[in-house]
C-alpha cells in the first residue's frame, strides 16, 4: 500500500512530461509549418516578384487603396482601384460588384483572385476590407484614421525589419 501511491505519482509525472512534450512539438510544428509554407496573403512586392508562377493560382494580395485610383461604373457594377505597399509596388485591381461599406480610398484591402503574368493587374473575385484595431469616437474634423496601425498590420514583415522609418527606405 505504501508503494503504490509513489509508483502512481512517478507514472503520472511521466504522463505530464510526455503530454507537454507532445504539446510543445505540435506547437513547434504548427509554427514552423504555417509560417514557412502558407501565407494568408501576399504583399504587392512579393506578388509581383513571383507573378510569373503565381499567375495560374488563386491567391490573396493585400495593400492600401491608392487615393484617387477608384473607378466605379454603377451601370455595369465594375469596380477598379490600385493597391500599393507604399513602396512603389502598385497593382491595378478589377472587381465585379459593389464594394463593401467599409471600402474607401486609403483603406487596407485583401483581394482574392488571379494576378496577371507581369504582376501589374489583378482580377479579384473576393474583395475584403481590413480595418485596424483602432476604435474612437467620431471626430468633428472628418476622417483622422491612424493609417500607421493598418500599414503595420498589413505589412508586418517589413514593419519588423525596419521599425518606424517608413519614409527613408526606398
Amino acid at each position, binding site marked *: 500500500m505504501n508503494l503504490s501511491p509513489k509508483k*502512481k*505519482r512517478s507514472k*503520472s509525472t511521466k*504522463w*505530464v512530461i510526455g*503530454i*507537454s512534450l*507532445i*504539446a510543445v512539438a*505540435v*506547437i513547434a510544428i*504548427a*509554427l514552423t509549418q*504555417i*509560417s514557412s509554407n502558407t*501565407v*494568408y*496573403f501576399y504583399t504587392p512586392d512579393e506578388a509581383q516578384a513571383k507573378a510569373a508562377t503565381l499567375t495560374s493560382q488563386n491567391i490573396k494580395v*493585400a495593400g492600401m487603396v491608392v487615393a484617387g485610383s477608384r473607378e466605379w461604373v454603377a451601370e455595369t457594377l465594375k469596380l477598379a482601384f490600385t493597391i500599393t505597399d507604399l513602396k512603389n509596388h502598385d497593382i491595378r485591381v478589377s472587381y465585379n460588384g459593389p*464594394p*463593401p*461599406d*467599409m*471600402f474607401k480610398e486609403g483603406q487596407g484591402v*485583401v483581394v482574392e483572385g488571379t494576378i496577371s503574368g507581369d504582376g501589374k493587374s489583378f482580377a479579384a473575385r*473576393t*474583395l*475584403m*476590407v*481590413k*480595418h*485596424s*484595431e*483602432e*476604435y*474612437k*469616437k*467620431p*471626430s468633428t474634423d472628418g*476622417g*483622422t*484614421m*491612424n493609417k500607421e*496601425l493598418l500599414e503595420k*498590420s*498589413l505589412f*508586418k*514583415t517589413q514593419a519588423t525589419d525596419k521599425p518606424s522609418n517608413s519614409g527613408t527606405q526606398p
Partner: protein
Amino acid sequence: MTERKSKFTLANSLTVLLAMLLGQWMLAWLWVPVDEAQGDVYRVIYLHVPAAFASFLSAGVLLIGSLLALRSKDEHWLNLSRAAAEVGLLFTLLTLATGSIWGKPTWGVWWTWDARLTTSFLLALMYGGWILLFGAIPQGPSRTRSCSILGVMIAADVPIIYKSVTWWRTLHQPQTILRTGGSTMDSDMLCVLLSGIAIMALVTVNMILVRRETLRLEQELEEKSLGGAS
C-alpha cells in the same frame, strides 16, 4: 446543510451576474459612442471579445482540471473538465457567430480561413471533440487519462489563437487592449469593454461551477441507485 447553502448562493450569484451583464449591454448599446470608421456595427465587440475571453478562460479551467486528474488519477476532476469543455464550446461558438456577424458588414465576408479564424474554429472542434471523447470511452482510468490529455492540448491552442494576429498575416485586426504602446481604443469604449470581459469571466466561472455541481449530483444519484439495487 452547508452544501445546500453554497449551491443556493451559486445559483443566486448567477442571477446577479446576468443582471450585471444586461446592464453592461445597455451601456454598450445606448451609452457608448459609435466608432468613427465602423459606425454602430462595431458594438458587436462588447459581446464578441468577452465571449472570446470566456472561451479562453474555460480552456484554463479545463487545463487545471486535466492536470489535477492526471496527477491524482482521481476521476472526479473530470466533472470540472467536462463542465469547462461544455461552457467553453458554448462561448467559442458565440465568439465565432458574433465574429461572423461583425465580419460581413466590415470585412465584406462572413468567413475567411485566416490564422485567427482557423485556430478559433479548431478550438470549437476540440471542445466538441472532448465532449464526444468523454461519451465514447467507458468510465475508468483510461477515460480519465485520454480526456485529460486532450484537455491539455485544447489549452495549448489558446496562446496560439491569442498570438495568431501577431505571428501571421491575417484579415482579423491585431490586439486592441493588451499591446505595446497602450490600447488603441477610446477610454469610454475601453471601460465598457473591460467591464464586459470581467463580468463575462465571472459568469463563465459560475456556469462551470454550477454545471460541475449538477454533474456531481448526477453521479451521486446514479451510484446511490446502483448501490440500492445490489
